[in-house]
């Protein structure tokens, strides 16, 4: 599979940029003797939206941290555009952004300064052009009113949107999302889905999305990987997954409420009484 660079345009300036591929090869991760990821291998093509799904505790976020270079695998390798993402030189060359589940905004900085930090530190543009980029990103996420607020003054959903805006300001080549639609209302979830799809369709940004949100996954993904108990149990297009007959996958993708379940009956009785 080809995972090297492909020439695309930058999401904001329209200039040529490089979407990058990701190669995860035999990755296992062990914490204090407990294996949380087991021999995971897959490739993400440049410009692709790759969605990782799985129940809580299946290791999705841990895998995302290995891809972001925040942690090193116990066994195996992760390569972003052929380079180790944990190295400073790789991050110098490849613009990699991670949207954290809890936002991870800098609490001591205003929303504006949160977004302007990256371009200022990397000296990419004048203060006027940085302001333009910041305001543009905030407008896309409909949070321009929060520009002078501090993260502590924002709701959970707004923090998430500002966090995505901060990632957009970085003009990323690889964008990693950790539960991008959690804590968001359905309208904003749909907007986020649109943004992820737009970045892919128009600007070929490579995206890896970790989510519980089945409809988000099946709507935007080019391919979906499903993790269970630290193992990648399947990998395919949304169509292939929708047609699956594997009972474990069907249970996960289309969970049913078992009305014969005693716990469900107990709840029903409480509701009636």
């Amino acid at each position, binding site marked *: 599979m080809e995972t090297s660079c492909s020439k695309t345009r930058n999401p904001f300036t329209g200039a040529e940029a490089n979407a990058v591929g990701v190669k995860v090869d035999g990755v296992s991760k062990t914490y204090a003797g407990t294996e949380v990821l087991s021999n995971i291998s897959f490739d993400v093509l440049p410009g692709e939206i790759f969605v990782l799904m799985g129940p809580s505790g299946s290791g999705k976020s841990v895998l995302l941290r290995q891809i972001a*270079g925040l942690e090193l695998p116990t066994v195996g390798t992760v390569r972003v555009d052929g380079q180790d993402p944990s190295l400073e030189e790789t991050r110098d060359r490849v613009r990699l*952004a991670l949207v954290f589940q809890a936002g991870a905004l800098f609490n001591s900085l205003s929303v504006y300064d949160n977004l302007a930090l990256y371009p200022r530190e990397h000296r990419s543009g004048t203060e006027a052009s940085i302001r333009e980029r910041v305001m543009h990103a905030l407008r896309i996420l409909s949070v321009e009113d929060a520009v002078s607020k501090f993260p502590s003054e924002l709701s959970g959903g707004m923090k998430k949107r500002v966090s995505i805006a901060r990632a957009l300001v970085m003009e990323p080549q690889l964008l990693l999302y950790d539960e991008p639609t959690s804590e968001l209302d359905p309208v904003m979830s749909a907007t986020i889905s649109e943004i992820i799809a737009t970045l892919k369709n128009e600007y070929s940004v490579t995206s890896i999305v970790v989510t519980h949100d089945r409809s988000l996954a099946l709507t935007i993904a080019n391919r979906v990987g499903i993790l269970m108990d630290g193992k990648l149990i399947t990998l395919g297009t949304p169509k292939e997954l929708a047609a699956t007959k594997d009972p474990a996958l069907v249970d996960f993708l289309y969970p049913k409420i078992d009305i014969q379940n005693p716990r469900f009956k107990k709840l029903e009785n409480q509701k009636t009484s």
Partner: protein
Amino acid sequence: MKQINAILEGVGSVVQLLFRSLSYTGSLPRQGARFIEQCYMIGYTTLPIVAILSFFIGTVLALEAGYAMQDFGAKEFIGSLVGLSMARELGPMMTAVLLAGRVGSAITAELASMKVYQEIDALTTMNIPAAKILVLPRLAAVLVMMPVLIVIANIVGWFGGSVVARYVSYVGISPQAYFAALRHYTKFKDVMNGMEKAEVFGFVVVLVCCDIGLNTRGGPREIGAAVTRGVVVSLILILVLDYFVTKILL
């Protein structure tokens, strides 16, 4: 064995952080705002408590010295005792202790909280090294502010001693006699030695507290534990380093 490993790991981590931070020294001129903010935090906010403490250290020294020396008729030497004690030992030592409690704890808490709430991870993915924007400005600020704090601590401490010397009945020497003795026996070199000590203490306190903050793992409870560890380790290091630095400077 486990504890020795932990100590060696800690030392290694601090040394690594030091070299990483120093490798970004060239970026300091562009970090003027951060540097000034840290100077304010380390210098200005610590100043009142340093002044109060130094004043009372000066008074206690003069009281004790006056009480002990009255039998020998050597009260005119109180100024020299307070002057030398403040300049060479108590000024730098007590200022460093206050720095550990006031600034070191705040640094550890801030960086530990940034680590726990993934702000440090966010910086890493943005390729903005924490050593560059969080550690280096603090190290530079402490090097600039410690001498200022020491000068003020010494002056206020000496003044505190003179107040006691003048107004406490069994001491009862004039400010002129007190300051004449102080000037005669306290040399510029003594004040400089104290400043050098204070620079070492302040630098180590800030570096260690930054390292402990950045290496915090777990949840909010660990932030409190990290702060305690930062302050305790800083205090121990101040006392241990005091012996060795004094030995070198003598």
